[in-house]
């Protein structure tokens, strides 16, 4: 499948850096990707356990998100993908989070890379479509391709929890970032799998799940005192 950049001539590597930047202003900083609950439960207590957590999230939620984003960036109907994302997100708390983050990416992307496809999706899903779907459409609007969109989601699956864990546990930021660096080859493989699935068709999109993330997300959403929204 051709890169969207073939058509619009934008969307080089620098554009990908803008979209993938952890400081992209789309609300991600208030979310921990489930690591706050894992820290409270004692399952993540340092860099070693953080690496295991990130690996698990990357191979499950990360893979699913990357494939949905790749499909959206390749031009698959975002409403169909939104329904498929719902089916892959059993936790109501995580569905709400995904739609909220999707709405926030939409708000940012419509200013940064305005375009008719973003406007249409925003009109059809004013309360937000799932985050990876919106991210894929935003990538398209930026002239990026399916692989680029998959990279954003796969990278975020690990980068979100790492940033949050630095704040929650006071980890050495160098060691925490080394966790991400060591995961890089695995992120590459997840992206390759995600893009291959997206090319095959929507029936081939992965549905890997992480039941513990689903369960703890529900509990976390009910905590009265917490640092992160999810």
């Amino acid at each position, binding site marked *: 499948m051709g890169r969207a950049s073939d058509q619009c001539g934008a969307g080089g590597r620098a554009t990908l850096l803008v979209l993938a930047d952890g*400081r992209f*202003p*789309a*609300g*991600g*900083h*208030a*979310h*921990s990707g489930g690591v706050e609950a894992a820290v409270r439960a004692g399952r993540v207590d340092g860099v070693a356990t953080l690496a295991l957590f990130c690996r698990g999230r990357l191979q499950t939620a990360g893979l699913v998100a990357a494939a949905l984003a790749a499909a959206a960036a390749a031009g698959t109907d975002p409403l169909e993908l939104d329904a498929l994302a719902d089916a892959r997100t059993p936790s109501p708390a995580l569905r709400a989070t995904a739609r*909220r983050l999707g*709405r*926030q990416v939409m*708000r*940012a992307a419509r200013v940064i890379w305005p375009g008719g496809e973003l406007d249409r999706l925003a009109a059809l899903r004013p309360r937000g479509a799932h985050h990876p779907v919106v991210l894929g459409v935003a990538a398209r609007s930026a002239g990026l391709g399916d692989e680029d969109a998959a990279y954003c989601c796969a990278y975020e699956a690990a980068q979100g929890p790492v940033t*949050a864990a630095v*704040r*929650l546990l006071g980890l050495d930021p160098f060691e925490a970032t080394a966790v991400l660096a060591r995961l890089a080859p695995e992120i590459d493989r997840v992206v390759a799998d995600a893009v291959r699935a997206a090319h095959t068709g929507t029936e081939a999109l992965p549905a890997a799940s992480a039941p513990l993330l689903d369960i703890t997300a529900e509990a976390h959403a009910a905590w*009265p*005192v*917490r*640092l*992160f*929204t999810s």
Partner: protein
Amino acid sequence: MHLGHPHMPTEAGGDAPARTVRPEGTRRALRIGLGGPVGSGKTATVAALCRALRARLSLAVVTNDIYTREDAEFLLREAVLPPERIKAVETGACPHTAIRDDISANLEAVEDLEDAVGPLDLILVESGGDNLTATFSRGLVDAQIFVIDVAGGDDIPRKGGPGVTNADLLVINKTDLAPYVGSDLDRMARDARERRGTLPSVMTSLKEADGVAPVARWVTDQLAAWVA
């Protein structure tokens, strides 16, 4: 009650918050941010402003708590506004990020309030207590109030920083405590004038009846300019 009425779209120029008109063509609410150090009296100011203005204006409040919903719950408990007019935003351990670098969640709260209980005249956005460098993005608020208090040390105006120096209004609160903490109010006023040039500062004691009056007057003036 609502002061606004449908009117022709007008775009503000420069870097001012450009979208002053809601999609359906009505003027959006004026948004005023309240920032300042922990415990200086931001929530108390918001509560007092709501009591002073709610009979005349259609109001809503967004709170940014650091890790609880205490501020929103305080406002609910005090019943300064009906619950549907108060919304809490969670800031992921970084209160200044949510009002300055990544305003997504706050913009969403503002939009949701206008959708749910609008049309609104005024939305007050309270920042989570932070340090002297925290200021609001112009993409989120039209004007900002920085609240400090006399008990935090009478050298704070002299120290300056973006909040003290550039906020559209500086509030020096808890003047009732000055004798007990040995703060020199004249010096605070003098230092504030020196730092702020022509920008206004007011002193308040929210423990006194109608202690918020100088802030309420300033807010009313801002609103008059907004709807003019």
